[in-house]
């Protein structure tokens, strides 16, 4: 059985060289390129040695799924087809992953919700599928604009959940994501989320690794569960479901199974820290006020911090990169000096504020807001305003901006 390492240095059918992933990500020369987030997804997948992509590219959409279709036409993806619905897509992804394929897909908003049943199934079956989630509104009336509410559902599925701030994060994390999620002690699906539209539809400078380099192929024989092959056909994969039995040991096994999925999420910590240089990034967290944010709320917070700095108010920043695994210890440490912890979010419920409140001591310090949702933008002024209100400073009314 060929190991991943044995592929290094060989070429694929597109003349890309299977490259040591660490070298490819950290040592290879990068080319600055001006791309939309969707184009960046395409470029990362081009280098990811994906065996299969299944998509349901409906309108409204990010172009990512269609662009990956182009990759298939160019010969960079082993197989590609369009599912009948989001639910079908995610089920078909599972089938491909059961069969030992490296699988990629993308969805957003109502599509994520429609396919939701599959995600705990992926995690329970230990399938390292990567799913890009370009978050947008999930409720009626329909919105194609950014809204991160769907992340709060994904966080309970047993999947790894990362939240990219920029297109550069997106590019790097797609490739790193496979390296983390395919580790045999992890071997879980990854929901790599970004705030739709802001990241997918806008152009940004992104440093790309060389086109002629790609990740080594997935090795399904390192899987922590039996891989489906001719020796182990699908009927054996059904695993005689415990739900068919009613006794203590069936329940105990099922409980232990669930615990093992979450144990694997915990194990991903070590690998993620190595690849992503930590689960969070911090700036000036010695200040009395610290913002904790994920996704593009981080970018808006940087602008707010600059505005406040001009007014003599110094504010720190914690960028949360991974939501599962949850960087609890890191956030406790980063906020230990803070008198006020401000949490701006692009959703109505404030799931990040709830997570942080459950994590840090003296959580009366947590200020859940500002919130915007339904596609609203979050002007940095409203974050600055929230902070000034918390500090008892005079704040001009920001209403009527629209």
């Amino acid at each position: 059985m060929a190991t991943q390492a044995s592929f290094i240095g060989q070429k694929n059918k597109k003349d890309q060289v299977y490259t040591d992933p660490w070298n490819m990500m950290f040592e290879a020369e990068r080319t600055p390129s001006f791309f939309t987030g969707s184009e960046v997804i395409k470029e990362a997948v081009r280098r990811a040695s994906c065996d299969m992509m299944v998509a349901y590219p409906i309108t409204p959409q990010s172009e990512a799924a269609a662009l990956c279709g182009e990759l298939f036409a160019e010969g960079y993806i082993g197989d590609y087809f369009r599912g009948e619905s989001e639910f079908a897509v995610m089920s078909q992804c599972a089938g491909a992953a059961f069969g030992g394929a490296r699988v990629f897909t993308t969805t957003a908003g109502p599509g994520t919700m429609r396919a939701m049943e599959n995600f705990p199934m992926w995690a329970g079956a230990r399938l390292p599928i990567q799913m890009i989630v370009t978050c947008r509104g999930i409720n009626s009336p329909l919105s194609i604009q950014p809204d991160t509410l769907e992340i709060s559902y994904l966080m309970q599925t047993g999947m790894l959940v990362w939240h990219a701030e920029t297109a550069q994060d997106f590019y790097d994390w797609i490739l790193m994501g496979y390296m983390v999620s395919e580790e045999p002690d992890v071997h879980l699906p990854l929901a790599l989320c970004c705030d739709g539209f802001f990241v997918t539809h806008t152009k940004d400078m992104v440093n790309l690794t060389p086109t002629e380099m790609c990740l080594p192929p997935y090795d399904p024989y390192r899987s922590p569960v039996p891989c489906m092959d001719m020796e182990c056909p699908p009927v054996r994969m059904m695993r005689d479901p415990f739900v068919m039995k009613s006794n203590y040991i069936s329940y105990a096994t099922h409980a232990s199974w669930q615990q093992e999925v979450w144990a694997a999420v915990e194990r991903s910590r070590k690998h993620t820290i190595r690849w992503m240089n930590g689960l969070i990034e911090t700036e000036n967290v010695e200040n009395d006020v610290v913002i904790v944010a994920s996704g593009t709320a981080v970018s808006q917070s940087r602008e707010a911090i600059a505005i406040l700095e001009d007014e003599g108010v110094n504010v720190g920043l914690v960028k949360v990169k991974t939501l599962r695994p949850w960087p609890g210890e890191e956030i406790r440490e980063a906020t230990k000096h803070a008198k006020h912890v401000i949490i701006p979010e692009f959703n109505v419920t404030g799931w990040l504020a709830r997570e942080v409140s459950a994590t840090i001591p003296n959580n009366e310090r947590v200020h859940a807001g500002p919130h915007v949702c339904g596609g609203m933008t979050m002007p940095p002024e409203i974050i600055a305003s929230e902070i000034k209100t918390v500090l008892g400073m005079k704040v001009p009314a920001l209403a009527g901006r629209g």
Partner: protein
Amino acid sequence: MTTTYRVMPGPEHFLPPSASSMGIRLPDPGQAHIHGSIVSEDEAMEQAAREFLAAKVPTIFPGPLVLWAWNEKAAKKAKAVRHLYETIKECVDPKLQQAMLIPMPDYRPKYPKINPEIEINPNHPNLTIWHNKIDACMFVGVHCHQANLSLKIIRGGTSCYTVAMCAQAGHEDAMLSFRDATAEKIGRLADWVKKLKGTVPPPE
């Protein structure tokens, strides 16, 4: 994450936590763990050998990855496992101790019941452990997910000392775990058992 949790023989709890959720981390290449503390591989070899020699019923549970010759390495490992079993058998006191080799051929739950004398099943491993009064065991060639399920259930309901000889990253739900197992590594463990023969007090 700093933790005071230790992975110890049970019975631990009605539903014990996974060791990973309690902050136990897996060893890096070249390392092993004992009760959740990272140690050198040699230290773990010695400790595992002592556990086998001190047990009344030291038992090896080989799983499908070494029970079938699906590649050359698997066949080599299977021979090494057999050698380890024979070594343990030779090195224990036959009047007081009984070494066993019980396969885990299948992961599907066995209904209406398993025959615990000839097999172990990862979904209800305690039946085999209780029936044979196994007090120290080693998992080898078991897929990691199934091994972790089983190791945790054993910790929850029995006092058996568990060792994992894992071909991948190791198992924090075992009391002692090696990683990156090879036939040579299994052979080294057999050498340790031989080396310590007669130095470990037999069970009472």
